[in-house]
């Protein structure tokens, strides 16, 4: 799982959807792995505008990465190839292979195994469908 993924995730529990604390999810005991990928400056330049910068800063900080800029780079800052390379490494080359992702709102932890995060819920938390609740009650 590339680190950029966390920028697109929130807690899977329905009740957490509207809670601000459910994003970003927080890593626990993350085992990181670097998998080299060709550096394509144009690609990173198009990825930056879609990144939620505050969420990225929180994640990078919690994982102990060197500090990334306080604000999303714009204009001339985007000509800094070193910065683009660092973002490429952080977002696309760094993978989480084992560990947990934790919701800051409900505390639920999602296990990551072999690079695949498990967002299936225990039966009492999942299932947003009334018909299943009904079937279980019968």
């Amino acid at each position, binding site marked *: *799982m*590339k680190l*950029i*993924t966390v*920028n*697109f*995730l*929130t*807690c*899977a529990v*329905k009740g957490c*959807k509207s809670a601000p604390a459910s*994003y970003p999810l927080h890593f626990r005991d993350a085992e990181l792995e670097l998998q080299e*990928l*060709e550096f*394509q400056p*144009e*690609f990173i*330049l*198009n*990825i930056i*505008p*879609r990144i*939620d910068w505050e969420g990225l800063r929180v994640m990078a900080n919690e994982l102990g990465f060197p500090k990334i800029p306080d604000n999303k780079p714009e204009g001339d800052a985007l000509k800094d190839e070193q910065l683009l390379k660092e973002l490429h490494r952080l977002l*696309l080359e760094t993978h989480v292979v084992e560990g947990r992702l934790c919701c800051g709102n409900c505390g639920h932890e*999602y296990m990551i195994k*072999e*690079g*695949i*995060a*498990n*967002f*299936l*819920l*225990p*039966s009492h938390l*999942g*299932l*947003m*469908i009334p*018909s*299943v609740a009904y079937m279980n009650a019968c």
Partner: protein
Amino acid sequence: MLPTPSTSHVSFDTIYEPSEDSYLFLDTLSSASESAWLTTHFHPSTSTTTPSPSPSPLILEVGSGSGVVLAFVTANSQQILGRSDVLALGTDVNRNACAATKQTVLKAIEDHHHQQQQPPSTSPSTSPDLKPTITSTLLTDLASPIRPGTIDILLFNPPYVPTPELPSLPTTTTTTTDISTLSRSEKFEQESYYLSLTYAGGKDGMETTERLLGDIPRVLSPRGVAYVLLCAQNRPREVVERIRGWEGDGKGRWCAELVGSSGVQAGWEKLVIVRVWREFTI
């Protein structure tokens, strides 16, 4: 014709094997009309709903199975979307499918890249396409952990067959059983269970599709587009009408259109693909 991604590495014991519906997806998305629509929609300079530079599209396939559809769109994104700076993401309730999807997409990206390196088929002035990438696959029910407003292209080939009952969804603990410790009959039962999840749609074949449709307004970005496959028993025309009636929540008007179909049964198309998106009045 664009090449079909290889799935020769996938074991179909618990995973849906690419079939007529999967191929309808590939044919529809790569058709001249649909590719033209998508290219205009996601072209940096023609897009009215996104800031410039136009951000890389994020493609999510829900219930990606073997990954053949996601791999096709991602690897051929230059031809289908007119740009190849795309990020792919897959979800499935079956861990084997999550692993298979990742591999299928990676392989298709590499195969596409190698083909491009073959002796020049295009003019030498054309710069090589960017290489797309897959960010991850997630073990989850539909799009439940996806952050609101993030998905630009959502693909869903649902379990659409009407069945008396809907199989229960796997939970956190379902997938922890090590398959090597299972007896022959337990293994058969588990495989049948996972395969039933790939096709069994409950009432009208719509129970799972309804839940996904209900989540579309939440997960799609303003420029987001969803493609959902339906069969005749799902009553696709009623579904289209219903989507057109969704409330616009100030982010544009909901549109739905049938953009692909295959096979004819008693005068009706057997399978159709619906495109769902928002339109903005400027």
